[in-house]
């Protein structure tokens, strides 16, 4: 590896001229040094992130239950996969995930972008408000789940109380009814993540060159035209990245639902990540859960590849 580095580097035209003689010196550590620098981090990521992905793939071919040693687990070939594709619970969980993703991301993008366009102008005290807006993002997901479980509680929850006082609506068992529980987790997610879209979009809007906006105004663009023909197209890559990041988060989400509903009632709020967790540690089917995990990896990898292609901050174009 080191030799390859030396040969690669000495033929590197972009290396500073003065380095050329140094690069040939046998004691030159500058060519091997990068590998020493990245090695520890790469090792931790290989063992902690990459190995588990391949281990999931391996385990997915076994019928392994919690409590029995892995050496006793049977290799069942593709049985887990065949079972997965014909398992209505898996499909329901995927459907719930997509439905959840559709509602949360649509509403968060709409609210976040609208609010950002409304409130982008610099104004006195803006930094205090921005500090407050990131609070929902900083609170631990477990605590977010607990707070909203309390607010949606059928007996002591504040939401039932105010719906009754203001609108005369009978108390609802929010987290015990499939549709209402789904609404509750969507609502919670919107509370927590709309600020993220808002902050990102406002940063993008404020980074737009003022000349372009000035020019479009001189050309006679009205307020709507400025938004839809100038501003939004100019921040479109930001919007796409924000959308993809939220989409990936939907497939990673687990903790808030685990606390609020545990995935229930039935499987009404069981997103794919939570489904894997429940299959593994509630139903105790580690091998089968691994097969579903492989499916999740495939989905997330495809989405991540999208982000990489659209906006890789480490791509060479930005290497100036």
């Amino acid at each position, binding site marked *: 590896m080191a030799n390859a580095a030396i040969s690669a580097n000495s033929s590197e035209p972009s290396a500073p001229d003065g380095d050329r003689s140094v690069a040939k010196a046998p004691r030159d550590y500058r060519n091997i040094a*990068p590998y020493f*620098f*990245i090695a520890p981090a790469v090792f931790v990521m290989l063992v*902690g992130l990459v190995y588990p992905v391949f281990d999931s793939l391996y385990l997915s071919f076994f019928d392994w239950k919690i409590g029995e040693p*892995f050496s006793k687990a049977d290799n069942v070939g593709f049985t887990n996969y065949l079972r997965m594709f014909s398992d209505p619970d898996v499909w329901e969980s995927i459907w719930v995930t997509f439905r959840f993703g559709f509602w949360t991301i649509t509403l968060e993008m709409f609210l976040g972008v609208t*609010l950002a366009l409304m409130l982008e102008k610099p104004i006195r005290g803006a930094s205090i408000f921005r500090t407050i807006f990131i609070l929902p993002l900083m609170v631990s997901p477990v605590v977010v789940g607990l707070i909203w479980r309390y607010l949606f509680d059928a007996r002591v929850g504040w939401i039932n109380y105010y719906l009754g006082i203001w609108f005369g609506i009978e108390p609802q068992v929010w987290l015990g009814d499939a549709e209402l529980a789904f609404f509750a987790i969507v609502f919670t997610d919107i509370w927590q993540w709309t600020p*993220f879209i808002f902050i990102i979009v406002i940063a993008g809007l404020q980074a737009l060159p003022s000349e372009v906006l*000035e020019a479009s105004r001189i050309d006679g663009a009205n307020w709507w035209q400025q938004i839809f023909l100038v501003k939004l197209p100019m921040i479109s890559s930001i919007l796409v990245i924000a959308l993809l990041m939220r989409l990936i988060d939907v497939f990673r989400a687990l903790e808030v639902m685990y606390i609020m509903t545990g995935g229930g009632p039935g499987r009404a709020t069981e997103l794919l990540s939570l489904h894997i967790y429940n299959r593994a540690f509630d139903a105790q089917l580690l091998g089968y859960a691994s097969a579903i995990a492989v499916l999740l990896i495939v989905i997330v990898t495809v989405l991540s590849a999208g982000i990489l292609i659209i906006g890789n901050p480490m791509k060479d174009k930005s290497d100036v």
Partner: protein
Amino acid sequence: MSERIAARSLNNPWRVAGHYFFLVLLALICLTPIWVMISTSLKDQITIFDGKPIWFFFVPTIENYQDVMGAGKFDKYLWNSIIVATVSTFLTLLLGGLCAYSLARAEFKGRRFVANATLLVRMVPPAVLAVPAFSMVLAFNLRSDLMVLIFFYTALNLPFAIWLLFGFYKQIPVELEEAAIVDGASPLQVFFKVLLPLMKSGYAVAGIFTFRIAWNEFVLALLLTGRNTRTLPVAVSGYLTDTGVEWGRIMAMGTLIVIPPLLFTFFAARQIIAGMTAGAVKG
């Protein structure tokens, strides 16, 4: 909006008032649930189970905090959380910083591959780690060892930290390092003496994000800890029982868990926003 229009519209007191009205409304929406938690943590059982929301005018009590902090192993769980979060943050910054520096500065074979792979593994869902981590822990008999959590949190946080620090290193002119090398400094000296002082804010941002993830993480902590190695998020979930949910205690513990992230928010909001937008806006 052009500056002239902006200036004109901001002279209109109605528009300014409308602007502030929306900002205050949004701020209230963000703050209300957090205030519900804090206020509930200060109420006694009877007030909570009365079911009538009282926003401000109740007789505050600290009995929930006394119950929670006095219960069995609270000190131990708090200590576990602090150790896990600080040690994994330290490791992430150390290893991630070296890696990001290398990726930003050196030309070497495989650089692009490592950079892209780092971004890709950033997306690995924690649920995917659950079963393999559980099986690793079984295989090596490491259950109830805090080192396991520290290791996995470091792994989970490294990609984002590397990504963020990479951007910060890119902003530092190469000439500074070249001058140091000409003066005979070794790579490690260049790293620690020249770059590190300039990287303070970058490391602050990466540190806050890393600490927050490690402090808040729940799924792996639930799986990989035992009676003595629980962290606070796992401990608080234990108060959710089928027989009865003790909201006062839950909210007291929730409030305690939220203290460090809230402090970060108030003292480093600008850096946090920089970290959040770095991915989308600069990319």
